[in-house]
């Protein structure tokens, strides 16, 4: 296994924004988040087996946990917790348009032709 040259270590042990990087500390953080993600995956499975009285509630809880997990991945793994402004600007549009797509199904209840036929 190679060891880092002293020179490169001096110049390189910083993250992409210049903050110094501590390998052991970074890996500990990533492993902790990974374990958290695994725990929440188990929770999602467990929650799916519980009868909350309404299947819609099961879906809501399942998706809420998935959204929390996605937030962890984006913020910690993808470093969105300390990213440059340009990235946030790009993602703002993505989030707005992506969220809008999730509600397109509302149009299915607004079919003017069907409405005209039934009235």
């Amino acid at each position, binding site marked *: 296994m190679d060891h880092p040259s002293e020179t490169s270590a001096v110049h390189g042990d910083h993250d992409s924004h210049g903050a110094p*990087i*501590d390998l052991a500390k970074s*890996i500990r953080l990533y492993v902790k988040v*990974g374990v958290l993600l695994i725990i929440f995956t188990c929770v999602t499975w467990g929650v799916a087996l519980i009868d909350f009285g309404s299947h819609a509630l099961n879906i809501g809880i399942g998706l809420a946990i*998935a959204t929390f997990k996605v937030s962890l991945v984006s913020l910690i793994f*993808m470093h969105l917790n300390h990213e440059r402004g340009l990235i946030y600007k*790009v993602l703002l549009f993505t989030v707005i348009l992506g969220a809008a*797509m999730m509600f397109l199904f509302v149009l*299915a209840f607004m079919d003017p032709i069907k409405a005209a036929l039934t009235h």
Partner: protein
Amino acid sequence: MEIPYTVTARPDTGLYNAKVGIWLFLASEVMLFGGLFSSYVFLRIGADFPWPRHELHVLPGFINTMVLIGSSVTVLSAWASLKARRYGWFQVNMVITILCALAFMCIKSYEYYGKFHHYSVIMVDGSVLDGHRPSDHADEYSPDQYNGDKVALTEVKSFTLNLAKSTTGFLKHQRISAGPDKPYAEVSAGTVVRVRTPEGKEVDFSEAWLKPVKRAFRDLENIRSDLAIITERIESPKKQVEAMKAAVTGNYPVPFDAAKAEKLLADGAALKASSLEKIAKLEAKIAEMEKDNPESKAPNLTLQVAGTPLTFLVNERDFAKYNAGEISFRDDVVLTGKVVNDAIPLMADVIDLRQTKDPEKSLVWKYYPQLKEPFFKHKEEVTGAFLKKHAAHANDFEKDLDWQHEALRVEIEEIASKEELENIEEPAHAINIERSDKRFYSNFSPSRSPYYAIYFLMTGLHGLHVIGGAIVLSYFLLTGRKMYKRNPEHLANRVEVGGLFWHFVDLVWIFLFPVFYLL
């Protein structure tokens, strides 16, 4: 040429270029998968059938989630190792990441394989039987054994071709009896089918014979079309005048223009006079061609088999429709004979009567009469437990989707006794479902239902992303040493960009897993 800002940040963005690029790419990827998730919502809320829930085995999906989360941690560790100038650790983490990608694809393939070898028959009364086929070796079956999804047609004494569409492709389904154990053996290469034309001429039926017949038919059709165009043009003025006369008394009356009508009729008469010679020529040509090519006269040509009647074994996907005495192919070839075996062999594992109007009279009981009593006993138990929990739904519990799912869709192992189950799982005791009883039959592929269509589409697309990501990361692993020695920060940036894509792949799966496997 030196590409700028591969290592250092661009002053205006504060980022190296590849990072801006990957985030723009990921934004487009979010829209791609967002569109597919939106389609999933549409399909689910608009489904006119019980949307499958808990039908996929959760464990493989769960393991794959673990694998992807693990690989996300290792790809980050690989990047951090480069930042700390620990190339050895980078290699170790990268190898684990790539192994995780391989493991993910292996588990996914295992899941797909299981789906492609699991079958579903929807019967004409809406009852559903899912199960496995006793054998996939359909070509050498005995009519008393398994025929997979093939239909056997014997005593084929004639067949009809559509000269505009048909080919000789159907001949590949021809079979021959090679003893009682092999009634549908492949015919040897070079076997010739001898046929008799409507005029009584005996010929070898082959592509070489059919090609000129089809060409002559096409030529004839072209000449007939020319003739039809001329006739139409001659008749057109007369039709226009008739329309003008009819318009006088129509819903929106138009006054009759006598002068225009007279001119139209005169034009028509003049055209007829000038076309008489051409019409006569075309008619003579048609008569001559019909005489020279009697097989090509009509669009449909029926040929009688000279000698021993033929036998065919046809895959369901290859024919358009069939009945007791005919199989029609998609290219309009119609074989006339006798269907001798068209049963669908199945070893069922699930009974689903949610779409059956009267479960008591379900067609399932024709094939599994021994399971009727346990099925309804189980239904009563489920109903009792359900009403205990949801007393308010005593009058409308049958509309409840959860009750339907629990009471009317059962895995046979839940209700059958051990002996019965062993019997049902024995290939020799597979049931043979008559095709007249089935409305739909397929494996659990995209054609099974919109649920499986979107499942395969989204997980398949996600799988392609896993493969793509693994290729890129492998490239960094295999070629990284040179770049590391030259400029380690450049390699770290590359791995960071590859890692961001890898996290996105993980992120998509975090939604796919509950949506398809759990909810």
